[in-house]
Every structure is written in C-alpha cells, then in structure tokens.
C-alpha cells in the first residue's frame, strides 16, 4: 500500500530525498539543504511536553518560516554562532519511512530518526524521535514543504540546545 500512492510517488523516491537530506545536514552543506525545501517551507521542533501542539498557540523549541530559516542558516555558517563553533559532528540514521497520505499535491510522510551529536569538550548527545514531513512536487522535483522533528525525550534535559538543524 505504501509502495505507490496514486502513482505520484514511491517510497524509494521519498527515502532517496530523506537520505540525501540527512547527508547534506551531516556534512553541513546547509545552502544545498535549503534547495531541498519549497519557498514557503516551515521547520518545527515542538515542545517536548506538547508534541502535537500548534505553533500559533504554543511555545515551540523551533518554529521557523522560510525567512527565519534562511537567517538560521546565515547564523549557523557564522563562526560567531558559538553554540556551533566548532561545528558539531552529527550522524543521522533515518528509518521506518512511511507514506501516510496524499492530500492534493501534498504527500505526508513519517520517518524515525536517531541523531548522534558529538562536540569537542562535550557529552555525546543522542536525539531520538520521528519526523513528520509534508512533501510537494515542484518542477518535477520532490521537495520538503514542512518538516516537524518530534523528540521522544520527555524534556530536553541533557540534550541541551537544539542549535543545529535537527
């Protein structure tokens, strides 16, 4: 059922996109990563205690529209972004990829993630959770219109800051 939905997208194509995204983020090729997003994309990390909340009514950890997301990338590339200088090393494992629905031109996808994060002078931190994506085809290319990274941790606690792109 999930292999092909309405013949618009295959799970393999979705997986290719998510794996490419993970690779670009792990290699800090952030400008190339931005090209995977639609011009009206949004990036959310909801609060750990309200994972299903709406960013208009609840305090998120991150709720970026495209304007602020571009600014976030400018910041991350600046050596004065002290929380990410020197850059963290991250390694993302993406799995359990499922296409959960198609609504018009929007393809809903969920996937699990484990992001290991290593920093000089710091603890190894492991971010575990799942993504909820909204994908859209634009100019023949499958793009990310919304990505929501939902952490399983009850609170950030020792995960500390989410200063990289989760």
């Amino acid at each position, binding site marked *: 059922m999930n292999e092909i939905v309405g013949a618009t997208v295959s799970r393999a194509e979705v997986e290719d996109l998510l794996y490419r995204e993970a690779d670009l983020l792990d290699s800090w090729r952030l400008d190339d990563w931005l090209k995977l997003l639609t011009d009206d994309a949004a990036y959310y990390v909801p609060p750990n205690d309200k994972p299903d909340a709406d960013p*208009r009514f609840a305090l998120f950890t991150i709720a970026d529209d495209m304007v602020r997301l571009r600014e976030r990338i400018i910041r991350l590339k600046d050596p004065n972004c002290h929380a990410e200088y020197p850059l963290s090393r991250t390694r993302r494992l993406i799995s359990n990829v499922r296409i959960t629905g198609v609504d018009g031109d929007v393809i809903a996808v969920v996937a699990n993630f484990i992001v290991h994060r290593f920093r000089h002078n710091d603890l190894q931190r492991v971010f575990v959770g799942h993504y909820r994506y909204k994908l859209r085809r634009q100019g023949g290319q499958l793009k990310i219109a919304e990505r929501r990274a939902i952490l399983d941790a009850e609170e950030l606690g020792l995960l500390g*800051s989410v200063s990289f792109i989760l």
Partner: protein
Amino acid sequence: MNYQPSSHDFVVENREQKTFFVNREVFVSADVLEREQRAVFDHCWIYVGHASELKNPGDFKTRPVAGRPIIFCRDREGAVHALINCCRHRGALVCREREGNARQFYCMYHGWTYHPDGRLKSVPGADAYGAAFDTGEMGLVAVPRLEAYRDFYFANFDRDAVDLGSYLGGAKEYIDLVVDQSPSGKMQIVSGTQEYDIRANWKLLVENSVDDYHLISTHSTWLNYMRNSGVNVTPPKGELLPTRGFGRDLGNGHLTTDNPNYRGRPVARWISVYGEDAKADIDAIRNELVSRLGSARAARVADTNRNLCIFPNLVINDGSSVTVRHFYPIAPDRMHVTAWALGPVEETEAQRARRLHAFLTFYGPGGFATPDDVAALEAAQLGFAAWREVPWSDLSRGMAKAPDQQLATDEGHLRVFWRKWSELMGARV
C-alpha cells in the same frame, strides 16, 4: 600592585580600590552547593508556578521546587496548594504524571489516597493501625509557606520567613510593569515548556540573564539577524549596546536591567520584523495602554526592556517577548532550567503568534541567542577546572562610578546578587 585579593573569602569587595571579586571555588565545590541549598534555597521565596497553569479545580502540575518533588495544584474548591509529593506511609511519589486533572492522588505502592487539597482520603486496611493513628494528621505535607504576588506563586521552606510582599520589595514594581501589559491585569503561561540542562553552575545563569556587557560578543549573530530584518541595532560610536540602559538594585538581592527598547515589543513597539500588517494592531495595543495607564506609565511598560532577577533563581525577561524561567542546581556544574512564555490573556491569535515568533528568535534552546549563552556558561565552567590557579572572577565594572550611573553593561547589578548570596552563606568556614 595587588589588583587581585589575597583573601580566602568567596566574595571580596574593596570599595577603596573599586574592585569586586568572586572566588571560582563557589562554582565547583560540592560543599558550597550543599550549603547553598540549606542557607539560600531553604530560606528564600522560591518560584513554584503561575496561577494560570491551574485553570480548573483538580488541575495539577508536578515539578521540583528547591529540590523537593512538589504537586502544584488547585483543589475542588479552587484553592491553590503546593504539596510535597511524598506518601506519608512509605515515601513514594503519589503523583507520577507531569500534569493533569485529579479527583485524588493515589499512591501506587500501597494504595493510600489523598484529596487534591492534601487530606488523607483512604488507607487500605486502616484497621491494622493502633488508636493513635489519626488520618486527620496524615495528609500530604504542604510546603511550609505558599504565597502569591499577582498570580506568581512562591514557596518558602522557612516557616519564619518574612511575607512574600516584604521579600519582593522593589521587585514588585518590575513585576507590575509586566502584568500591566494585560488590560485585565491577567497574564497567562503559554502552553509548551522549555526544559533543558546547562552544564554549568546555576549562579552563572543569574549573572548571564542580566549581563548586557556580553551582548555584542556573544550575540552578534542575533544582532545580524535583526539588522538583516531592517531593525536599527547599531549603537552610537563608542557606546555599548544597549545604550543608556541601567542596572538596578531592587533590595533583598533582587536586581534588574532597565533599558530603552530597540528590539521591538509585542506590547507595544513595532519593528519591521513584525511586518507592515502588524503596525495598526500594535498601535491599537499602545492606545489601550495609554488610555488605561496614561502616557508616561504606558511608555514605561512599552518602551523599556527589563531583565528581572528575583533572588535567588527566578528570572523574568521582559524583552522581545516575556519569558519566565527558573533554574536549580543538580550538581555544582549542572543546572536544570525551566522556561515559559507569558502573555496577556486577552491577546488575539495574531498577537499571540507574534509574541511567540519574537520569543523564539532570541530565547530558548532553539533560539538565535540562548544557545550561545549556554555555550558561554559551559565554556566558563570548563575554565573553572583551573580555579586553584586562576581563582578570581572580576565583577568590578562600574565600581568607580556613582550608584545611579550603573549601566546595564556594568556589573553593579550583578554585585547586588553576590552581596546577598555572600550575606546568606556567611563567612567562609
């Protein structure tokens, strides 16, 4: 030349030489932490929560307060309690959920149950106890003192402490400036909690929360974002941001910055980041302020940023948004931070969304500024490994100036915290 002290005290002030030093042992020592927990946290009013978090009878939140597990709850009659979450029988938590609505608290170990006001409700097999067993005396223990100022609830573990109002002293005026943003005088904690640890001593976050000296070096990427968004954040030549801001001593160890606004405020100062669409709305909010408070008071509420520290561990930042955050040491080199957004209950959906957007740009573990503060504090803590060789932190900035000339970029207000801390901790043993 003896710029630095030869003393072994924790805090060394030399008014003649205009110097003020803190010994870095206070950031690394387990003995100091133990003493702080008894001498500071067990005698001061410690923030518990906000009335708006308990909307309905039976609502509860569980959270640590001064290291104790606490149930912050509203009973069936509407009264607010802070109960120690510890069964009178054998000590287990009687409520293990983060939040909810309870008809009773049920201890899963042996089944004792308690009313939401703390009274013991039932004991399985109560007939096995002797005649002296008095269920009326065996309710959940309440914190010794619980008092509120304008919906902010504080607990005190010292039964003989002064009342909360006297304790807050000059800080009340600055809480009022926050609460006055609401036409009805009712603020609310917005849903969604930011809870994160910082691997640094808790006192560093007190300093950092009110220290405007670090703005340009630590937060240049945030200033760039503001600039890119069309906000003028360039200080006059030779001045430090924020210009003309003051650091103030509010008595009893409380302190605040008091700065002219340059970074926009949802109530009620428009900046380009909000978008043209928001201009009329911000004007309307401002008009309401002026008609209710008069123009002088309205300007005070809308045109100043204030980072307020209620001694010892509550910070209310009324900046580009309002954040309420408190923190508690888990170890000398680790603190747990809990932070919320606070806004007027009357806010429309658009106003609330604007407030939250402004919040996230600066504050919190995913913001453009807080993660760099965390990095700075953790870098300091790593440096303190050499506290024996490099023992003194220098907090002398501004000492050569008059008390009413202490800028927010000076350290006069940081010294307010340290003097009170030092007074409560007593002489070094």
